[in-house]
């Protein structure tokens, strides 16, 4: 595994990410913007599921999920790029592994809430159905998991 990681880290691409004047900061900034897109929009959707504000109709909110997946794609690509720059360190870092766990949990929760809550959205908007406490709990968990992902991501840089 270490040989593979070292090979990744020694590619000219990884070298460019590390030493070019603009490469690393630009990729990091795109990672921050992708984060704002993914987590910012998911916070809004999670809060709406919790009930803040109830006046916001759920049906049109489904379109916001496209922004989430766009941001997620950006961060998958920029994240892989940042990984190549320091593959050995990242792979062996417990902080980084916990961050990945938080991201995978967050995306899974988003996919579940997305498919179930949005399916019932017309009934919820018309008042015929209510969002069950279980889903509100998942929305709160989603917020906590993303807070963890952001914090762990920042701490990885200090290891």
């Amino acid at each position, binding site marked *: 595994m270490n040989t593979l990681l070292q090979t990744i880290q020694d590619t000219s691409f990884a070298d460019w990410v590390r030493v070019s004047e603009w490469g*690393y*900061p630009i990729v*990091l*900034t795109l990672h*921050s*913007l992708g*984060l*704002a*897109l993914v*987590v*910012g*929009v998911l*916070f*809004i959707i999670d*809060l709406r599921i919790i009930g803040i*504000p109830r*006046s*916001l*109709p759920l*049906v*049109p*909110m489904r*379109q*916001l999920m496209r*922004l989430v997946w766009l941001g997620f794609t950006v961060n998958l690509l920029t994240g892989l790029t940042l990984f190549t720059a320091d593959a050995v360190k990242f792979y062996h870092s417990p902080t980084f592994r916990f961050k990945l766990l938080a991201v995978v949990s967050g995306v899974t929760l988003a996919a579940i809430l997305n498919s179930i809550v949005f399916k019932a959205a017309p009934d919820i908007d018309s008042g015929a159905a209510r969002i069950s406490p279980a889903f509100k709990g998942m929305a709160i968990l989603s917020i906590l998991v993303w*807070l963890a992902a*952001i*914090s762990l991501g*920042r*701490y990885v*840089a*200090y290891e």
Partner: protein
Amino acid sequence: MHHAPILVWIHDSPLGVVMRDVTWLFPTFQAIHLVGMTLLVGVIGVIDLRILGFAKGLPVAALHRLIPLALAGFAVNVVTGLGFFASEPYSFAVVWAFRIKMLLLLLAGLNALWFSISISPHVHGWVGGVDASRLAKVLSLLSLMFWVCIVFAGRFIAFEGTGSL
């Protein structure tokens, strides 16, 4: 080297001292600064995009009720941002990315003020499916551009100059 008295005062303030002495505080403030940025840019960005015509089914007035969340994010980032600045005011003061970020924040603030004075009183009419006014779209596009540039400038502060920030 001689420093402006205000910078010396900020550097020697309790905030400056604690930011330098407690090693885990700086990265923790950075994590909180990112969360504040997410709240601010996430909420403002979604409102801007709705006004520009994306997810037009969303009523603008209902989205407007999320603005306190964006303001909370901004307040958090003023506090954490002051912490960063107080930790090394002499370095921050001369970094161009920081100066440009502060200028862009001022412009984004004025743009938001213009929006809240001339546009916010009319948003109740922009229910689901209704187009926003042309001025609202121009101000929203400017807002999106300002915030993207602010994130860029902020991220670049760490890569400019001494490498100590």
